[in-house]
């Protein structure tokens, strides 16, 4: 596929060639991403419906499959309401900041050992930088709305993201130590050698901390106090309607898929097959990456249907007093692994 893009880009003048080439690669990644966001909302409602002994959406199209498209069309045609005394510029910029940071991080996510939009050397750091920018969209939305519910939601969400980012960063340090690289492709390559070489086993506490922090970072249930309906209506996007709301929605689900992709790349061996060594099904393939992402996304939905919402002070306690010490201890344990050359750390 990359050769095809190279050929297409050669039709253009030389100055534009790299732009066309990268643009085509980006489109191939982003269009399926937006489509999978749409399908994820459908799957979410279906899965939670089944878990709660309901049918879920079943009116639009066969088995309700066109429900997300109906929702999108409805949101597109709704009016974007500007609240009185809202800061208009920031109110309208905020959804874009959220969306740009959510999609921008995908630029360095590799889908196989050869396909990524940009193969950056410090790609893990780049993802961390862009996800840390996402908090601005939320704070600005909450502040610019000029509503106390929105502001409270923004405060909660921002404090939560800052707290869990630290635990997440420490979990990543463990992975970087083990793989000896900040490049996502090299991190996956370092895990080759069968399912017991993937980092979920040797870095198990970090894997759990990273996954739970990822749920908290995307403000998903059971950590969704930022938009806790029972307390603050809908949190930071309470006054957003129509397409502006749809942008927030799109960014949240794109972030969920991003966390799923990162967890599979960092801890579950990415595109490596769990049956390594067996011919045909043992070959690394994008299919394995998508299967792992699908499983993690299912877990996201499963947790939402299962767990009651955390209380806010408990979320903060979990982030600062439980996760950060766990990650610190396990980084030290990993150092001991290296020193005594235990497991895959003997290199």
């Amino acid at each position, binding site marked *: 596929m990359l050769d095809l893009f190279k050929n297409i880009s050669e039709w253009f003048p030389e100055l534009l060639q790299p732009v066309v080439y990268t643009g085509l690669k980006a489109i191939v990644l982003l269009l399926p991403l937006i489509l999978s966001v749409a399908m994820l909302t459908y799957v979410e409602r279906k899965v939670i419906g089944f878990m709660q002994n309901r049918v879920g959406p079943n009116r639009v199209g066969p088995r309700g499959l066109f429900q997300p498209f109906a929702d999108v069309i409805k949101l597109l045609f709704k009016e974007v309401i500007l609240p009185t005394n809202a800061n208009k510029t920031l109110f309208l910029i905020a959804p874009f900041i959220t969306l740009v940071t959510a999609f921008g991080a995908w630029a360095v996510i590799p889908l196989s050992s050869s396909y990524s939009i940009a193969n*950056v050397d410090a790609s893990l750091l780049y993802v961390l930088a862009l996800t840390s920018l996402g*908090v*601005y969209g939320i704070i600005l939305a909450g502040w610019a709305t000029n509503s106390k519910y929105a502001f409270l939601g923004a405060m909660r969400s921002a404090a939560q993201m800052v707290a869990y980012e630290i635990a997440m960063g420490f979990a990543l340090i463990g992975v970087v130590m083990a793989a000896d690289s900040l490049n996502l492709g090299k991190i996956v390559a370092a895990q080759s050698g069968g399912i017991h070489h993937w980092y979920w086993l040797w870095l198990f506490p970090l894997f759990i901390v990273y996954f739970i922090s990822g749920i908290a970072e995307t403000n998903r249930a059971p950590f969704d106090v930022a938009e806790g309906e029972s307390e603050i209506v809908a949190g930071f996007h309470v006054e957003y309607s129509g397409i502006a709301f749809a942008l927030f929605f799109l960014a949240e689900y794109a972030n969920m898929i991003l966390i799923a992709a990162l967890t599979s790349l960092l801890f579950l061996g990415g595109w490596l097959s769990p049956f390594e060594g067996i011919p045909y099904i043992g070959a690394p393939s994008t299919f394995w990456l998508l299967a792992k992402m699908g499983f993690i996304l299912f877990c996201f939905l499963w947790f939402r249907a299962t767990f009651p919402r955390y209380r806010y002070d408990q979320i903060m306690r979990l982030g600062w007093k439980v996760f950060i010490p766990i990650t610190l201890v396990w980084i030290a344990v990993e150092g001991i692994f290296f020193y005594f050359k235990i497991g895959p750390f003997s290199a």
Partner: protein
Amino acid sequence: MTFELFLFYLFGTTLVGSAMGVILSRNPVYAVLFLVLAFINSSFLWMLIQAEFLALLLIVVYVGAVAVLFLFVVMMMDINLAELQQGFTKYAPVGAVLGVIVLIEIGFVMMSDQITIKFNEVQEFAADYSNTEELGIELYTNYIYPFELAAIILLIAIVVAITLTMRKRPGLKVQDINKQVAVDAKDRVRIVKMEAEE
């Protein structure tokens, strides 16, 4: 003009412009947002000289954490702008003198031989050159003592900041999570069996 040079001037002008915005904007929230824009632009400038580790770290640390806290504080505070502007004429001369001193200092630094030499030879690096690795090797071998000293100073700062916020008020109702977890159903609930009435 090469494309890199064009980018340098673009980011440089935006950087200076947003730095002006920080001090000129009347709304403190806008000032913090201009500061964020300045950080991001200087990170781009670093990326142009292939210092991607420092560039990304600048975004992670300053934009992702420090400026978020600034924004928090500024949004929470009720700032009276008229009151702030009252003493402007009184403080203006002092500010001007300080500004001139800083300008002269920057001039001295820029004129010094060491800086001019370093500016004239911007190195080109091979594609497989890892900025992160080089920095790590330097920090953990040649500069290990200054590095550890800086780490200890930061740790002390963290401990002090946390101690400052730890105030014990009498009569405060706080939940002890360990006690809550250790609770047994037997201590809390007493099941009373009663004969059913006819």
